[in-house]
C-alpha cells in the first residue's frame, strides 16, 4: 500500500482509515481483488501527489473511490482482456480527464458520489473469512484488505518470510476466484456460523498482538469497532469488542521489568481508563441486546476481574455458562480456579483433578497453587516442576520458578 512520507496533513491516518472501505467498494464494483488493489494503489498514490498541492478533499473516501474507479475503467478500456476478470458488463464512458476535473477544493465534489457509494466492508470481511479458505489465509487476507497492512508487516507479525506470506495471499485470492467464493454478506441462515468465523479471525489477530506485538492488537480493535458500527444489533460483535478493550486496557500493567505480574498484583493506575470505560460500554450494549454468547460471557468475566473486589462466585457462574457453550476443558479449568477462590482450594482441586489436560502448563500451575494452599507441599513441588517443563516463555518460567522457591 502506498504510504506517503508527508504526514503533515495527517495523510497517513486518512489512508489507514480509508483503505479498507475504498478497496471493498472496488472489489464489489470490479469483482476482482487484484484489479481492485491496483486501482486503489494508483488512487492513493495520486492522492499523495495531489492533496499536499491542492489541499485535502472534503470527502477523502469519495475522492479516492471515484479516482480508483476511473483508473480501473481506463485500464480496462486500454486492455479489453481484463474485462474477463471483472463483473462489469459494459464499460462506462469515464475517462482520465474526469479525474483532473475532480476539484479537491469543491466542498460538494464527491458528496453526491458518497451517498451512492455503498459500504461493502462487511461483504469483504465475510469473503476473507469464508470457511473454504484456510485459517491463516483468512487472517492474512483480512489484515491485507481491511487493515491495509503491507505484506511485509503481516509477515513480520506472524514470523514467516515475506515471500511465504505473499504466496499465501496469492493462493487465497486464487481460491476465491476458482472456487466461486461469493462477495456478499451471508444469508440469515448462514450468518451465525459465518459471523462466528469472522469474530474468531479478529480475536486471533488480537491475541497474536496481545503477546507483545501491540500493533496487531490495535488493528484487531479497529476491526472490532468497524464491525460494531456495521453490525450494531449483533451482541457477540459488541461482546468481542468489549473483551479486547478490557484486556488491552491492562496491557501496561502485565509486565514489570520484564516479569509477569498477576492480575491481583497489578498497578491499576497503569490501566487505560478510556479503554476500560469503552470496554464496559460495549459490554452494556451486548447485554442490552440480550447477548449471552461466548464473547459476551468472556467480556463479562473480564469486567468482573477489573472490579476492585472480585465476586468469585459470580465469575465461577459465568464460567459455568461458558463451559456449557464451549465444552472446553480449558474453560473448566478457569472455572475451577474461580471455584477455589469462592469455596476454597479443596473444591477447586476436585474439579481440576477431573480434567485431562496433561500437556497444558496452566493445569499443572493451577494444581500446584491449590496443593500449596492445602499444605500438600511435596505434591505442589512436583506440579510446579511439571509446569516449568511446559512453560513457553522466559517470564512465565521465571514466575513459576519463583513460586517453586517460595514453597
Amino acid at each position, binding site marked *: 500500500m502506498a504510504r506517503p512520507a508527508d504526514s503533515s496533513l495527517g495523510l497517513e491516518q486518512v489512508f489507514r482509515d480509508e483503505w479498507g472501505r475504498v478497496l471493498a467498494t472496488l472489489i464489489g464494483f470490479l469483482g476482482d481483488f487484484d484489479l481492485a488493489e491496483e486501482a486503489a494503489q494508483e488512487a492513493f498514490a495520486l492522492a499523495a501527489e495531489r492533496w499536499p498541492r491542492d489541499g485535502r478533499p472534503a470527502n477523502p473516501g469519495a475522492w479516492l473511490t471515484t479516482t480508483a474507479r476511473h483508473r480501473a475503467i481506463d485500464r480496462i478500456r486500454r486492455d479489453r482482456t481484463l474485462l474477463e476478470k471483472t463483473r462489469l458488463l459494459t464499460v462506462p464512458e469515464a475517462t482520465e480527464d474526469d479525474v483532473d476535473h475532480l476539484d479537491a477544493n469543491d466542498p460538494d465534489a464527491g458528496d453526491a458520489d458518497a451517498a451512492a457509494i455503498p459500504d461493502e466492508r462487511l461483504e469483504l470481511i465475510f469473503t476473507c473469512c469464508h470457511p473454504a479458505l484456510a485459517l491463516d489465509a483468512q487472517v492474512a487476507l483480512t489484515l491485507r484488505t481491511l487493515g491495509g497492512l503491507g505484506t511485509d508487516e503481516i509477515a513480520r507479525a506472524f514470523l514467516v518470510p515475506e515471500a511465504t506470506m505473499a504466496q499465501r495471499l496469492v493462493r487465497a485470492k486464487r481460491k476465491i476466484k476458482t472456487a466461486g467464493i*461469493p462477495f456478499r454478506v451471508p444469508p440469515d441462515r*448462514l450468518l451465525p456460523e459465518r459471523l462466528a468465523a469472522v469474530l474468531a479471525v479478529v480475536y486471533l489477530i488480537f491475541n497474536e498482538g496481545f503477546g507483545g506485538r501491540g500493533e496487531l492488537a490495535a488493528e484487531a480493535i479497529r476491526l472490532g469497532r468497524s464491525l460494531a458500527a456495521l453490525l450494531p444489533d449483533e451482541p457477540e460483535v459488541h461482546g468481542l469488542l468489549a473483551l479486547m478493550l478490557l484486556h488491552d486496557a491492562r496491557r501496561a500493567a502485565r509486565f514489570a521489568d520484564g516479569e509477569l505480574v498477576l492480575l491481583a498484583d497489578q498497578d491499576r493506575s497503569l490501566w487505560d481508563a478510556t479503554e476500560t470505560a469503552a470496554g464496559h460500554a460495549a459490554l452494556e450494549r451486548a447485554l442490552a441486546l440480550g447477548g449471552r454468547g461466548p464473547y459476551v460471557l468472556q467480556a463479562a468475566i473480564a469486567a468482573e476481574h477489573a472490579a476492585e473486589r472480585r465476586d468469585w462466585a459470580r465469575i465461577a457462574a459465568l464460567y459455568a455458562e461458558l463451559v456449557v457453550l464451549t465444552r472446553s476443558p480449558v474453560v473448566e479449568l478457569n472455572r475451577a480456579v474461580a471455584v477455589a477462590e469462592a469455596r476454597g482450594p479443596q473444591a477447586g482441586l476436585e474439579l481440576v483433578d477431573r480434567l485431562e489436560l496433561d500437556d497444558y502448563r496452566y493445569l499443572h500451575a493451577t494444581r500446584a497453587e491449590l496443593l500449596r494452599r492445602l499444605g500438600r507441599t511435596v505434591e505442589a513441588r512436583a506440579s510446579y516442576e511439571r509446569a516449568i517443563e511446559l512453560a513457553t516463555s522466559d517470564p512465565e518460567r521465571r514466575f513459576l520458578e519463583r513460586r517453586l522457591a517460595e514453597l
Partner: protein
Amino acid sequence: MQYMLLIYTDGEAGESWERLSETEQQAILAEYGAISQTPGVVGGAQLAPATSATTVRVQDGRTLTTDGPFAETKEVLGGFYTVEADDIDAALEVAARIPAARMGGKVEVRPLIEM
C-alpha cells in the same frame, strides 16, 4: 458454476451399513434420493464397492489392467453429485446434507473447469 461433490466413506462403511436397521437404511436412502431431487443437483450416482474396481494404465504402449482401485486407501470413493450453482455456498449446503458426511465420511467439493 458447476461443482462435483465427491463422497468418500471410511473403510468400514459397509459394516456400519449392515448394522443399521432396515428403517434406518430406508431413511438414509430417502435422504440421498431427496438430494438428487434438489434444484441445482444435475447429476450423481452411487459407485459399486471398491472391490468391483479395475485399474487401467498404459505404459510404453502396453495396457496394464489390474484388479482393485488405484490405491488401497482408508477412505473410499463411494459416489458423487454434480451441482450447478452461482457460488460455492450452495454446493457446500448440499454437501452438508449428504449422510456420509455425518457418518464418518467426507465430501470433497471441487469446481469443474468450464470447457
